[in-house]
């Protein structure tokens, strides 16, 4: 009875539902487009301001479409001494050096922690993950870094603090633990040592997790300015983000290397600087977004 009933009712209802659904979907697209636009608006504002002429900004303020197109800001940034290329170099070294080293060190600890037959698995897991819950705070860390390890004004001060991130170790450990233990046993029977098993079996099977954590790590290093704020005062070791911070904090910083008498394009200069700092990230973002999305599910799997 219910079947007949449903059959009688469904065509009209479905048509009505279909029309309503279409209307609802249209509304959703409208709302999401608006939200996306609002999110991207600041990016547009900064990019267009960086291509405006300094006088236009002085006159009309920052606007969404550039008035009096000009490349002065960029020209100024690249001509005012070697500071920007140098900051790029520092950021690239720290980002790729740091991320590679970090990935190596973290996989090396995540693997033993993933092995059920490792005698120290439980105590060492606690040792790693306890640091997520409690730490001595900024002051002892700062004193350790500067007075005991003497890392002030070295690139190691930018690399070391993010070398072992317990949460990333957790992601890697979870992934490694999913590799069938029989594979490892079989390799052992064939005479493979722990190093060989790790390098030849575990790592090649874990590329998705390695990619995700590697990208997180790259992003962490590239976007970091905090460690530089704490430990770097030598201008030659400023990473890009920290240079931008200095320009923001002290407009005069740009004109340091400049001959007297020329007014630096400060309003457009900081916007151009921001665009230069975003550039590589935006480029990478387009390609790697799906890894991040996958990383989210990896992290929540545990």
């Amino acid at each position, binding site marked *: 009875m219910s079947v007949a009933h449903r059959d009688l009712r469904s065509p009209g209802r479905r048509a009505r539902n279909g029309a309503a659904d279409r209307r609802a979907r249209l509304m959703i697209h409208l709302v999401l487009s608006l*939200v996306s636009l609002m999110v991207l608006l600041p990016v547009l504002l900064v990019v267009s301001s960086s291509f405006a002429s300094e006088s236009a900004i002085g006159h009309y303020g920052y606007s969404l479409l550039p008035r009096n197109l000009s490349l002065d800001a960029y020209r100024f940034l690249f001509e005012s001494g070697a500071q920007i290329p140098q900051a790029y170099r520092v950021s690239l070294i720290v980002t790729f050096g740091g991320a590679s080293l970090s990935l190596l060190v973290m996989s090396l600890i995540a693997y033993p922690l993933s092995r059920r037959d490792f005698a120290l698995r439980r105590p060492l897991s606690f040792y790693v993950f306890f640091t997520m819950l409690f730490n001595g705070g*900024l002051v002892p860390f700062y*004193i350790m870094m500067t007075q005991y390890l003497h890392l002030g004004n070295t690139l190691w001060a930018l690399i070391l603090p993010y070398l072992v991130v317990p949460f990333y170790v957790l992601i890697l450990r979870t992934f490694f633990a999913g590799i069938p233990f029989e594979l490892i046993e079989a390799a052992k029977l064939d005479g493979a040592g722990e190093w060989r098993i790790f390098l030849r079996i575990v790592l090649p099977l874990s590329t998705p997790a390695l990619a995700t954590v590697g990208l997180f790590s790259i992003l962490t290093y590239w976007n970091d300015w905090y460690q530089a704020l704490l430990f770097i005062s030598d201008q030659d070791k400023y990473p890009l983000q*920290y240079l931008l911070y200095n320009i923001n904090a002290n407009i005069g910083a740009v004109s340091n290397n400049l001959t007297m008498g020329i007014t630096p394009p400060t309003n457009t200069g900081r916007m151009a600087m921001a665009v230069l700092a975003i550039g590589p990230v935006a480029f990478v973002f387009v390609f790697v977004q799906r890894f991040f999305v996958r990383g989210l*599910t990896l992290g929540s799997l545990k």
Partner: protein
Amino acid sequence: MQRSIKPAAALPTAGSRRPAALPRRLARGLKRRAAKNGTLLLMALPALLVLLMLNYLPMVGIVIAFKDYKAYQGIWGSAWVGLQNFHYLFSQDAWTITRNTLLMNSLFIVTTLVGALGVAVLLNEIRDTSKWGTKFYQSAIFFPFFMSWVIVATFAFAFLSADSGLLNNLLTSVGLPAQDWYASVNFWPAILVVVNLWKVVGFNSLIYLAGMVAINPEYYEAARVDGASKWAQIRTITIPLIAPLITVNVLLQIGRIFYADFGLFYQVPNNSPILYPATDVVDTYVFRSLIQIGDVGMAAAAGLYQAIVGFALVILANWFVRRIDPDRALF
């Protein structure tokens, strides 16, 4: 470390039947186990050392909170002052920084939850019919997550600058008075909420969307047959089914409520002292006391205060999470 293989290969040789073989085999087994565990321990060593230097040894430095620290006297040479640092802290600034930290983080948790759930629900509705649309919106809203706070601060400046900011341009063009945003404390809770939401809403909506994708489509099918509207489906299927995910996510955020995002509170207000009544949080306070003012003891006291309250909150939050979804508990 190939050494561990050799004893194994040597096992079936002559003499293994003699009674003495048992202890010898046992010894070999032990040796092999030691070798295996030794290799695994060696692998873990670099990370263990990094954590020892940067996390565990500094924990000893907590004593600085109870000292009148002077750099030239060192940690152990400086004089003990008991609870004096804490006394100063709680007689002056503790209330402001605690209030700002808890209040702003609570606002962030609520606004992010509402915003991210909203976006996730909308994305979920068009996911099947418009693949490219979903991808585009998702990417656009996720994008700010990849920006550093320095860049975000530059974005904010383009809007809020008193002379040339877009916001004042808009205000004056419709006849309203321009505002000196970087000098008016009252605007800042709202500004920080908007900036934070802008940066993290995409990331959080992806977490919730991942939960929604996992819902069995048959539920919606059945609801449609019964004539349930889209809104009714969202209310009675989508939200209830991801409720555990929401609870766990919010609990984990509550566990971190005593830790503020230093970049947001330091960079976006340009570290402007006029704005401290609204923007100063525990993290910025510790940083300023240490680096700018040089009151190391006070900074350490505030840091320890944060570490202890923060630890208690994490433990509490984790206890609740464990009761709801043991798989997502930290420990």
